């Protein structure tokens, strides 16, 4: 079947592992690393899921948002907790924009009379 005529297709998420068809070795390495990252360790898998949700929003990846909205909810985070995580991403992104305002100020001060 031809793929739908838009850049993002929800069904493509399930095909993620197909990236190995073109370069197996690197895909295998990536997926094994990915699996390790999300295991219970110094941080619990549950905590990592909420971090992943926030990062998904920061990188605005629709696949990751789909996956980690389900995963974080499944792992017991409440709606309010999940939204606060998104706000953390928003605050950092907003802060990251605004803190560059200092750079802008520096430059302007440098050149202004």
């Amino acid at each position, binding site marked *: 079947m031809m793929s739908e005529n838009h850049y993002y297709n929800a069904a493509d998420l399930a095909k993620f592992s197909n990236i190995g068809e073109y370069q197996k070795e690197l895909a295998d390495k990536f997926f094994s690393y990915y699996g390790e990252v999300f295991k*219970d360790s110094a941080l619990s*898998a549950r905590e990592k899921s909420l971090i992943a949700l926030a990062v998904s929003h920061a990188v605005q990846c629709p696949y990751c948002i789909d996956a980690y909205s389900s995963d974080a909810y499944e*792992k017991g985070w409440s709606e309010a907790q999940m939204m606060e995580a998104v706000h953390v991403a928003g605050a950092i992104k907003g802060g990251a924009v605004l803190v560059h305002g200092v750079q802008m100020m520096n430059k302007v001060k440098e050149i202004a009379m």
Partner: protein
Amino acid sequence: MIENANKISLEKVVMKTLHRQQHELANAHNQLQIIEHGQTGDFALVPFQQKLDEAGLYPLKPTGIQTFQVNVGKMCNQVCKHCHVDAGPDRKEIMTKEIMQQCLHVLVQNPSLQTVDLTGGAPEMNPHFRWFVEELKKLRRHVIVRCNLTIILANKKYNDLPQFFAQHGVEVVSSLPFYTQDRTDRQRGNGVFEDSIKALQLLNGVGYGMDNSGLVLNLVYNPAGAFLPPSQEALEKEYKTALMERYGIRFNQLFAITNLPISRYLDYLLTSGNYEKYMEKLVAAYNPVAAANVMCRNTISIGWDGYLYDCDFNQMLDLKVACSSKHIADFSMSDLNERSIIIGQHCFGCTAGSGSSCGGTVT
């Protein structure tokens, strides 16, 4: 506007059983049609039979029946949204003392049936419940009661259930879909969480869940929505910490159970538009190791009217065992041990991820 919104949110939404609504899903045949072929008749998933075949498990055979699970009736004080029994206060199907006597007779004849698992509805609402438990203990069987917790507070006559359970050394298995009020009440009804916490404290009070008391209290988690349970082990830790810190509650084990697409949970999946995606999720998570350990291989399920089923799910789908020993009055262990278990697409609920049974994961 705001006033109106408040009014609606304060209104207590009273759930009704499908049976009472005369809903088409109250009929087992209609449910099976959807489970096997989808809503439009053309929803084709890989057949469960094919998956079993690939694993060398088809036809599915018992490995030796040890657990005798008795559904003593569909009456319940709650009307949970996910209930596969479609239980509720209006259900009148209750096991009679005569059928219970036939069960006891079978247990006398079959000493290998070591565990008797009592379920419902709320099994305690059966008027012969206490008598039955006492008789089972006289036969020295391990007795499990699937207690919904709120029944203990539902009426004065049930307030002493914790003492009754303790006196007979009954293992208590109780649903607490989550350790927060919000998720629990959404699935089981307003106020259920608060009453469940009180009931758990009463059970702890008589020794349930306490070290060295020998009184076992296990909790059941099931997802409040269209998703699969997370890791049972991690969840047990979280439950233990949260319940201890917030309410001083102790318990033994947590069983993480997957919801099967039957009865009210099927209705929920269909009305929320989640049915197809949920089934696909179950199939994608199929685990052949879990398939080898499904509970129907060592359990027999007895309905309120004495008919025999492979499991409580097949019971609700009215799929009686495929052998001549169809009723407790004609119970034949050899016949039952040689039968083939009836399977269907709903079985994917038992084989997803780490698997699911009345005792939690199976791998």
